[in-house]
């Protein structure tokens, strides 16, 4: 149990993913700044932001709303992000002991942050937050099926096994899954699902700043918002790591492998950042059609290709 606690709180759990996620957030912002011909923030800016919100800024609680639900929602979102990251990183780092969860469990746990954002937003009683929450929920419903189809395709590719260890191992002797035609198609679908899960442009309609002034998070400030920021950092690290485990045969932490591991993470985050910087925000109905029709179609094509051995 003590070991589980260490896994959960220190490495590869909470502390590790929070720090790494903060650094990735810096990377994302720096790239964004370069795309926009700006200088960009210093390396530790995400941590400055977090501690400023936590320690200095005043917390404003909405007068008409459910206060305890409002304040507890970020705590649960942090739980969802942390526990899914542990379940992803234990297989990824090759740690065989401790608690496990298959990809379906991870799939479900990864929706907890979005769910808690929604509940927290609704608890604030702000109409803008309600608009944001309803959009977030619709977005969840639309990308969930595409993401599941990606997982199903990979389950078929790895001989019907749903454990993340086995999915990583199935890629070891031969090439990684991304090396096949179906793998590339599935990777594209997965990247767009990630984009929506992370709430990045073009799928940031739930928190559209220019339109509904940060939507779901409009009422959050101070310590509560610090927790949400932390969740977002963790998700920015966890989800690309999940993709690496699923498509790029995980990572290898021996010698030069560490460099490769870092490059893989940076490459996935770079793709996400470039998409978000070169696209406009779409409407929620467009996003729903995009996932329901096009992404699902792509995923189904990939599954058909898998049956023909591509």
């Amino acid at each position, binding site marked *: 149990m003590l070991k589980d606690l260490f896994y959960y709180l220190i490495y590869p759990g909470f502390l590790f993913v929070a720090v790494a996620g903060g650094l990735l957030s810096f990377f994302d912002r720096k790239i964004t700044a370069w795309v926009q011909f700006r200088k960009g923030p210093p390396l530790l800016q995400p941590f400055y932001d977090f501690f400023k919100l936590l320690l200095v800024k*005043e917390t404003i609680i909405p007068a008409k709303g459910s206060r305890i639900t409002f304040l507890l929602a970020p705590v649960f979102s*942090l739980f969802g992000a942390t526990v899914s990251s542990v379940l992803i990183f234990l297989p990824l780092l090759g740690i065989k002991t401790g608690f496990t969860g298959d990809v379906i469990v991870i799939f479900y746990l990864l929706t907890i942050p979005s769910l808690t954002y929604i509940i927290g937003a609704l608890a604030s009683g*702000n109409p803008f937050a309600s608009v944001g929450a309803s959009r977030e929920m619709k977005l969840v*419903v639309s990308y969930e099926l595409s993401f599941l189809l990606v997982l199903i395709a990979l389950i078929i590719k790895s001989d019907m096994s*749903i454990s993340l260890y086995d999915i990583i191992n199935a890629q070891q002797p031969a090439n990684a899954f991304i090396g096949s035609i179906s793998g590339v198609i599935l990777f594209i679908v997965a990247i767009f699902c990630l984009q929506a899960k992370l709430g990045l442009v073009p799928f940031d309609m739930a928190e559209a700043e220019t339109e509904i002034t940060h939507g779901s998070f409009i009422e959050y400030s101070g310590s509560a918002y610090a927790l949400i920021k932390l969740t977002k950092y963790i998700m920015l690290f966890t989800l690309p790591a999940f993709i690496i485990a699923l498509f790029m045969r995980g990572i290898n932490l021996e010698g030069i492998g560490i460099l490769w591991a870092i490059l893989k993470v940076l490459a996935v985050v770079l793709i996400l950042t470039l998409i978000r910087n070169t696209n406009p925000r779409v409407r929620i109905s467009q996003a729903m059609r995009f996932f329901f029709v096009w992404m699902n179609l792509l995923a189904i094509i990939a599954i058909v290709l898998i049956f023909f051995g591509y």
Partner: protein
Amino acid sequence: MDHIQLDTLYLPVITAIIFVPILAGIVLFIFPEKIKTVKGIISLIIAAPVLYFSYDIFAQKNMAGKVSLMDGITIKSQVINAWLEGVGKYTAINIDNLSKLITLLIGFFGLIIVIYSLVYINKAKGIRNYYPYVLITLGSSFGAVLADNLILFVIFWGILAITCYKLIKGYDEESSAAAKKTLVIIGASDGLMLLGIGIIWKISGSINMSELSITTTDAIRNLAFITLLIASFAKAGAIPFHTWIPDYVKKAPASSSAYLPASLDKLLGIYFLARICNDVFILNQWLTLVIIIIGVSTIIIAVMMALIQHNYKKLLGYHAVSQVGYMVTGLGLGTPLGIIGGLFHMMNHALYKSGLFLVAGSIEKRTGKEDLDDISGLSKAMPLTFLTGLVFALSISGIPPLNGFASKWTIYQGIIDFGKTPGVANQLWIIWLSLAVIGSALTLASFIKFISGAFLGRRREELKNVREVSIAMWFPKVVLALICVGFGVFATNFVIPKTFIPIAGDFQYVGAWNSTTISLLILISIVLGIIIYLAGNIKNFRVDDSFVGGETFREQTGFASTEFYKTISNYKLFSFIYRKAEEKWFDIYDLSKNIILWFNKKISLAHNGVLSNYAIWILAGLIIMLIFLI
């Protein structure tokens, strides 16, 4: 079988839990309606020991086997003894792990509902003879579950259709129509079941379920199976025989809805489905395919209907249909994992759905409103109702680590496992899995609407005086919510091994889920979160009104939760389907009603009142009869 023979000492207990509630119910008819509280307390006095004895039966691990209810009776007279022996054949009951589990659950829900009704039914303008019907339902449900003989089974099953009809009050046109619809759909399916039982008797010469093992090879055997399948689907509420549930729950008192469509009807319908799929018949792969198709389409169609509902009871009613899809899918798989998933989901569904109806009843009692548009922000006024409602809602949406997740996860694994073996339905496992998972996401979406519409947000002015309900109404909900959490937390290391493996046999998990460890981590996370809050600047907080883009906040300012999913119903395809569904195009009751009325009109053309025409009809009829008879 290494089970020891059923102890005849237990026979009086078994007889008692079936007949004491029924007899007490009949006696309670005599009491006047004015002393409703006394009737309630008498029911409580009956329901509590019944729960104890049903637990007693459940706890006897080794007790299993068949017995006749008449075995215990010994009478000197030869004539009566011979007669008893004849009757004894038809009163065979069968006790195995499955019927023991269902017995316990029925006893539990009986007690929970009686406690809740003590306050709920008294104050509201109750139904006439509410408690007698509740008790008769309780006894008959035990009878139906324990019966081995199909005739005995169908008698108890038929009584349940009548009590279900009587537990809804016909106070206006819509409620009478709903009651009639319930009776017609369930009654018609019972009629079909009688046909099926007749066929079974003809084929195999026995109507004791434990003696049957019919292969579904030819048309007549398939027909027998399908008639019994329809009966179980109509009871549990699977598509296309589900249409009575949304109408029933909209008009019935919440306690009736929690009692019959939410818990007992599900338990019995799925129990019977499990019996006919696993014991009575040996399914061929096409029947498996049909059952799974009905299962997944039930999930999706009902949840899509739930998304657009404004009336919260009707919303819950559609979910009571949608969740049946998971159980049907799980049982349809026929593998141990699938059966365990289906039965586990049945138990969980009975827990959280009856809980949700009790929540709905509490809201209705305190506010008098039935529409999500008319209520909001009740979380502070009714904290326990909110908290339990949230647990039930997250549970039904399958959020880990609650019990709904545990059973859905078992079903998903069952589907993946099922896909590994050859067969028609097996090859299509991707479709079953995707539809089941997306159904769960849509369930979450529509419960977000329910929770936010009823509890979150700003409270309306007219709801200022709403208070929490009294202890008899919140206690059952709290018990149900605690069990929901407990079954989720101890799912993989206690509930499934102890309760379901004895029923369905041992199996290997495909996936991995440490429910207890991860639940502990939640506790740690909450502590961690509070530590972060306390370490931060949380003491320096300010309460202020919401920011709405610089506008002043008015009473009407807001975004109604019922508008959440307009985007979906605005798509052309969906708006068309929704419109047709509102016009009852897909309602088997209305469809068959229209067909019958059409025939009626055609036949009534012959009735033109001319005497000579009637004489010709009679003569023609006689001639046809003569031809057939000679």
